[in-house]
């Protein structure tokens, strides 16, 4: 109960600056997600109250946009770019290599909440294709070898070339 109230208070503090603004809903959702990493049910309720719309409406908006998530993400959010330039330069294979290395499918988070894996439509660094983002850092010209180096702990179980 206490944690619930604390969470609500935290959310209310985050969204307070949007009160009375012309544009409330999406910026408020973005602000909460930036701080908490996801949108708990409480956020939908509080933002609805602030914007003067129902929780359902907020939920409808939040689930329409790819940016929002309703479950917590991993500490390191890995996003493989699936833009066209990345696609023709083999991003599908990169994605598969990441899936194997992290033992995750797209949309999943490791049980220790270390990593979550997602795809992004295009991060606009097409000249460096294929690309991948880990939290705020963009990695360009990714190879399957680079994937192994980025995620060594998990990749190790797979074949290490003999000398």
């Amino acid at each position: 109960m206490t944690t619930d109230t604390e969470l609500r208070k935290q959310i209310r503090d985050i969204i307070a600056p949007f009160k009375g603004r012309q544009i409330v809903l999406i910026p408020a959702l973005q602000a909460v997600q930036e701080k908490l990493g996801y949108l708990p049910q409480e956020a939908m309720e509080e933002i609805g109250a602030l914007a003067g719309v129902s929780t359902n409406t907020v939920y409808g908006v939040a689930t329409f946009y790819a940016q929002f998530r309703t479950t917590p993400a991993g500490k390191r959010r890995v996003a493989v770019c699936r833009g066209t330039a990345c696609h023709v330069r083999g991003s599908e294979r990169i994605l598969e290599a990441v899936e194997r290395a992290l033992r995750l499918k797209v949309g999943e988070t490791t049980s220790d909440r270390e990593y979550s894996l997602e795809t992004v439509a295009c991060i606009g660094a097409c000249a460096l294709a294929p690309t991948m983002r880990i939290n705020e850092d963009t990695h360009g010209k990714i190879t399957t070898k680079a994937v192994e180096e980025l995620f060594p702990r998990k990749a190790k179980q797979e074949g290490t070339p003999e000398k």
Partner: protein
Amino acid sequence: MAQSNTKHQILICQGSGCESSKSDKITKALVDEVKHSGLSDTVQIKATGCHGFCQQGPIVIIEPDGIFYTGVKIEDAPEVVKSYFVDGKPLERLFYHDPITSKAVPLYKDIQFYSQQHRLILRNCGHINPEEIDDYIATGGYTALKKVISSMEPTQVINEVQRSGLRGRGGAGFPTGKKWEEAYKAKANPKFVVCNADEGDPGAFMDRSILEADPHSVLEGMIIASYAIGSSNGYIYVRAEYPLAVKRFGIAIDQAKKHNLLGNNILGSKFSFDVDVMQGAGAFVCGEGSALMYSIEGKRGMPRVRPPRSVASGLWGLPTSLNNVKTFASVPLIINNGADWYAGIGTEGSKGTAVFALTGKIANSGLVEVPMGTTLRHVVFDIGGGVPGGKHFKAVQTGGPSGGCLPGSALDLPVDFESLSKAGSIMGSGGMVVMDEETCMVDVAHYFLSFCRDESCGKCVPCREGLPLMIDILERITGGKGKPEDISRLLEMSDTVIKGALCGLGTTAPNPILSSIRYFRDEWEAHVNEKRCPALVCKPLINFYILPDKCQGCGICARSCPAEAITGGKRMVHVIDQSKCIKCATCLEKCPPKFSAIKKVSGETVEVPPEPVPIAAGAGTK
């Protein structure tokens, strides 16, 4: 070469691309190094936006001589400073090398990628510090705004833009002056100016680079537009995936306000205008005008029936002029140089320049700006340097998921709104992806259609239900189970989706399929009739084999195979169990090049032993 009493500048790119290669740290290292060498009085370090040659990044230019360095690393900083400013010689190992001739090109102006371009919209990109308004002002920035406010009536501004022939750079090419005129004449108030920076086409990053490298040019265009249509409020809708663009545009707004170029009583006049940044939340469909406005209002971004058009009923039902980033960036140039000057560039129906993000299988990947009417061949081969690695050009894709793939026979087409749409593609916002013989056109069609399916808002049945059904057929084809009637059925369904969907997303979603079948039908038929993927891409149609006469039994492939599909032993020819193989191509990558024992095929079988056998004497040697 370096003169000690001349003021030199070291320009370092801090666009998204170069920043991913730690260009911010390189800047710091250069600053430290200059200070350390006692050169602070003569050498200035300047962080700039994107040069549009991201593939070669991080890029460093020494001005005024125009020495161009590529792929600069943090540890290069001492040498960059010492070589030129102490020893008087540029650092040759960082020169750009022409991908065709392999020759070193030391000077910026001699690099074909740049010298063949005609940069108007990108005029300041890479040359000014985007976070310093004075840099923009020093290049003549905001003089157009001053001219408009001090000596032009709104109708004169609209007339000038109309006469210039400027058409919207977001893709549709609607005449900008006409849009402004309609917004100006609309009776309701207040009115809004909105900048569409929701650059959602995968493979396009023109708008991102402009906002990162020259945000004031866009802001100036927006202020002029608001003066012309009589608006006092504006928004820029930027993708949240572009954090640097958001940050720099925010800085530009603050600086413009401090200079009284934005806000109340701009430059002492009665005209007031304010801009807010709204971040998109990752929905491609919000690039469509009505969806974008719903999104600003805090709703689900679902397009509505038009008319009324947004100039009559846009944001909150009020008159709104929505223009693209590049459209706004063109406006100050037109005001300063005149409509006739602008109308003198380009073709009869398409004036001015086009900016493309040239990517994919291309030697020089980056931002390209050319006059409308330039041929695709000039862009791909003369500027882009053609397809690298000795591979052959197969297609060029323009217009993103709404566009099409054009074959080699279309390379002499002039790039303008009319020609590209006649050929079955579109101009689009400027993505241009080059594909080579290793790109499967059916796979690309599948890629784009899957993209549109995922991004469909779900409002119209033909788009929501039709696209998944079309993907079922496509997956049948790429999965080796294609039926003879599948191609004609896809054409039929495309027609239904085009006729039945409401917005630009749905009505153009089948374009990549239509153009692909139109130009590459033989490739489609190979998939359907022969169960063969000529480009060796579609997994169910390809197989990997280990060639017995080349395998040396080193075991690297077996150890790296994630599916444990390879068996063998020391000095044994290894064998892939086809039933276990997941076709990830790891073995192909890991097999030492001196052996090259892995072969990828489609539609054929390779004779290999069923079980590992001892290596024959002399195998693998020449």
